[in-house]
């Protein structure tokens, strides 16, 4: 019902006022969705933190000062001037480390999703569009990769290629590829069955033309939705690998790595060192999930489960 009235509104809007472009329509519907707007706001906030980290951070995130080890922040009298969220065991400013960590998490996430798209789109399109043995072979390989819990697969890839941030990006990118390929495949399968594709075939369009001009542009919606949700997962998994000591290596201010170092000091009541980096992870993932769910409702109601 709701959908119908929405559609009616759209039509009347289109007739009365000037036609809005796709992007304008997306913007209008996104801002009409409260939780998606909130998610977008959180994401923008984190992107600002990442870009302007050197300007926003009060201190050098790597500067060690053992005389300031595990000092509390603004809430306590024992705090150090200029370290609002306190210090870690090495006396480094936690706020500055979290701000610089935003850069790491977002870039690892974006590159991992980028790798997944780079391989997932051609694989998904090939499997969905051509079908037959191409589809069977590619999807059986995906099945094998699905036989491992995602984090375990990432851990094992890291065990093969070595630790570090760059390796984390590659490992996560590989892990997300089959999922991405599946989403794109199902979207391609749906579009392939549409009548206008049949019409394209009838007028003699080549396969590459149909794929580039019709199939891919119409698959953009699920790709955007799924990339947003995968970015959230990537931030979580990057932090998990860092926490296990298999991702970012010290003294990198990666959120998971900060947690893995700080968790030993909660027994000394230094709660701040372990609390704030976790909140950063939680809120960035929450924001992306809200945005992803909102985009799914707006762009691709078919994906809604």
């Amino acid at each position: 019902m709701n959908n119908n009235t929405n559609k009616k509104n759209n039509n009347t809007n289109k007739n009365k006022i000037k036609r809005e472009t796709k992007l304008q329509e997306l913007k209008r519907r996104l801002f009409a969705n409260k939780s998606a707007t909130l998610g977008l706001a959180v994401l923008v906030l984190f992107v600002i933190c990442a870009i302007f980290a050197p300007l926003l951070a009060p201190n050098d995130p790597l500067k060690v000062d053992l005389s300031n080890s595990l000092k509390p922040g603004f809430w306590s009298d024992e705090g150090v001037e200029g370290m609002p969220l306190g210090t870690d065991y090495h006396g480094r400013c936690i706020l500055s480390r979290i701000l610089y960590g935003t850069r790491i998490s977002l870039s690892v996430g974006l590159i991992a999703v980028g790798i997944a798209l780079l391989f997932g789109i051609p694989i998904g399109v090939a499997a969905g569009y051509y079908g037959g043995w191409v589809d069977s072979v590619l999807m059986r390989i995906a099945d094998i990769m699905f036989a491992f819990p995602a984090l375990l697969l990432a851990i094992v890839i890291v065990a093969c290629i070595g630790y570090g941030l760059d390796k984390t990006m590659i490992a996560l990118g590989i892990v997300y590829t089959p999922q991405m390929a599946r989403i794109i495949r199902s979207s391609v399968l749906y579009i392939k069955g549409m009548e206008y594709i049949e019409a394209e075939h009838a007028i003699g369009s080549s396969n590459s033309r149909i794929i580039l001009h019709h199939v891919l542009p119409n698959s953009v919606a699920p790709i955007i939705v799924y990339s947003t949700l995968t970015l959230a997962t990537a931030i979580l998994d990057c932090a998990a690998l860092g926490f296990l000591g298999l991702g970012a290596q010290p003294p990198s201010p990666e959120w998971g790595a900060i947690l893995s170092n700080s968790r030993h000091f909660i027994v000394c009541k230094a709660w701040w060192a372990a609390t704030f980096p976790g909140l950063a992870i939680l809120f960035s993932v929450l924001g992306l999930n809200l945005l992803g769910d909102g985009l799914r409702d707006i762009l691709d109601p078919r994906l809604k489960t």
Partner: protein
Amino acid sequence: MKWYVVKRLLMIIPVLLGVSVIAFALIHTAPGDPARVMAGEHASQQVIDAITEKYGLDKPLYVQYGIWLKSAIHGDLGKSIISNEKVSTEIFDRFPATIELTIFAMLFAIVVGILAGVISASKQYSAADYASMTVALFGVSMPVFWLGIILVMIFGVWLGWLPIGGRIDTAFVVGDFRRITGFMIMDSAIQINSGAMIDSIKHLILPAIALGTIPMAMIARITRSSMLEILRQDFIRTERAKGLSERVVIYKHALKNAMIPIITVIGLNFGLLLAGAILTETVFSWPGVGRYVVKAVLQRDYPAVQGCLLVFAFVFVVVNLATDLIYAYIDPRIHYE
């Protein structure tokens, strides 16, 4: 249905073979001579020669794979480089700890998740609905390891109510408490040792909550949406019109019909729990397979990593298969090609 079961059983064979190829490839992608990788850095030439002989490492790759697969099927996963123990024994010893943890985490997730979902759906747009859906929203975005740390901090360090790690107090281990099944609670029940039982339950609470929170949130969300759909249907209106009490309508008739998507989500989450166990076990020093695999990767103990990979993938595939079969059983409308 019978054919569907047979077909699904046959389908896991190629998947498991693929898994074994990946596990086999692991040793060969590691830098250096595979025999040296399997024997460890400080092994003598004699040991290396013995391993080369045993696994046919001087033969072509497909022959090596055949030899390796044959011994793996017979339960021989090689020896750990670090402890020189059989990998199969090491995994087998730690397995009950992981299973015990995942079962309790899942119980927590199912009970709390379904309850929260049902309350949300039956009182849509109430304060209780908003509260439980906010908790669920935070739950799905939660870094498991961080939640574990926070729980330890609050209930272990500040309040001192619950232990902060391990499975049981060492006082019980040095006493006459014996390991029988490896499941602490079962072992203490068999030996009628109530002290050990209470202590092991206490040790389980925090890790189970940490591990169970994400599935709990997912179950709560799916229960709510599935219940809302059912509650709008005609037969529910009929039952209310007949004068059945709200409790009977919701818990007996609506929930039963809303179960299919809930069961799917539960099945999917069992696999996620295995991955989550890797993190939770690290936070709580839980002596399970998850912590073992992390240690093995950090120490470059390749045979151990290989063994864990096979075991995890096997459990994961079997759980997924079980979910599919249960799904087909409870919903006969679903026909598979």
